[in-house]
């Protein structure tokens, strides 16, 4: 299982890549594998506010629809429209397939997330 060292992870299997107050968010390799073939992604609108722990997107596999939770709070500045036409990218390239970019209102929230090493351990226990 692929867990890049430079990202932060949530216990709901989202990843965060951050630079300054900007965070891009996606779902992990573990999550895409557990879901199976992803056939649909629903994303919020640019400008919407999200809070940490709140569902902001939906991924649908062949079998079911699942919520995606935001690991951080802030305002959505960009959504990845490529996922509308090619949702399967989430399977083939989970860490390249960001869902949204969020301008974080409280970058301190990153400290509550897991490191790659911690996430690896967390997945083993799941």
């Amino acid at each position, binding site marked *: 299982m692929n867990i890049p060292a430079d990202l932060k992870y949530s216990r709901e299997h989202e990843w965060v890549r951050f630079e300054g107050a900007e965070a891009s968010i996606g779902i992990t390799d573990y999550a895409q594998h557990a879901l*199976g073939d992803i*056939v*649909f992604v*629903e994303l919020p609108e640019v400008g919407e506010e999200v809070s940490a722990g709140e569902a902001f997107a939906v991924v*649908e596999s*062949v079998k079911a*629809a699942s919520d995606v939770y935001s690991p951080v709070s802030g305002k959505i500045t960009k959504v990845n429209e490529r996922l509308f036409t090619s949702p399967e990218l989430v399977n083939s390239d989970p860490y390249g397939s960001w869902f949204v970019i969020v301008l974080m209102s409280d970058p301190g929230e990153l400290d509550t997330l897991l490191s790659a090493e911690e996430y690896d351990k967390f997945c083993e226990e799941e």
Partner: protein
Amino acid sequence: MDGQAIYCLMCYPDGGVVDDILVYRFGPEDFFLVVNAANTDKDYNWLTQNNIDGVEISNISKDLAQLALQGPLAEKILQVLTETDLKSLKFFHILCDVKVAGSKCMVSRTGYTGEDGFEIYTNPNNASALWDALLEAGKPYGVVPAGLGARDTLRMEACLPLYGHELSPDITPIEAGLGKFVKFEKPDFIGRVALAAELSKGPARKLAGFEMKERGIPRACYPVESGGREIGFVTSGGYSPTLKKNIGLALIEAGCAEQGSKIDVVIRGKRLTAVIVRIPFYKKHYK
């Protein structure tokens, strides 16, 4: 005919469905019923409660395992494991004494995928070895294990009803578009009066197939609207890999079920446009 199967709907007096089942005739007085596994006890109780003199009913579910080998290459693969000529086994027929990979089996040319294929019945103790043998024999042909999700996609594309979705105690065979399996020319059966009445005045609801026109995947139980008014609900839905479209089946007011009609499927609070299309979505010629 001995060795032949028919698809049957077992109904309540009001026309609702107890279960949809396959009935095989082994002999003039010997029948084998294949029911939905989740309904085994309910069906057994229903049959026993409504039994007539001289008929013996037994529940042999625990003594039989079933494996399904499905797809256009099924005959080729299964033939590797048996000396019985499978070409002569026609659709909806069963052979009761077939050796498959050394195990005694019953083999029927049936399935729940909308493709050619076989269902193989054997003693549960042989099932695991038979599974391995099928995967091994099928390897050169690209056989893969398929779970419920894959099977559900296939049966939905072929519009084969799933009990609890397109059929239930609250949905009649007439509403579900399965009227051709209700044989009014036969002697009495449970539900006859209600079903005949429904057929003569036309069902209030109909099962219709639809294709999403806007981005969204319909799922079972989502409401269906027309002009802002609720007209029914989705019974099954999902992405169709064969058609590369989002499709579904819905039980809706009969007047709204015409081909080409627009409907709205309410997905997570949003109304998304869909259009009624001809079903089945996908059709395959059986052997």
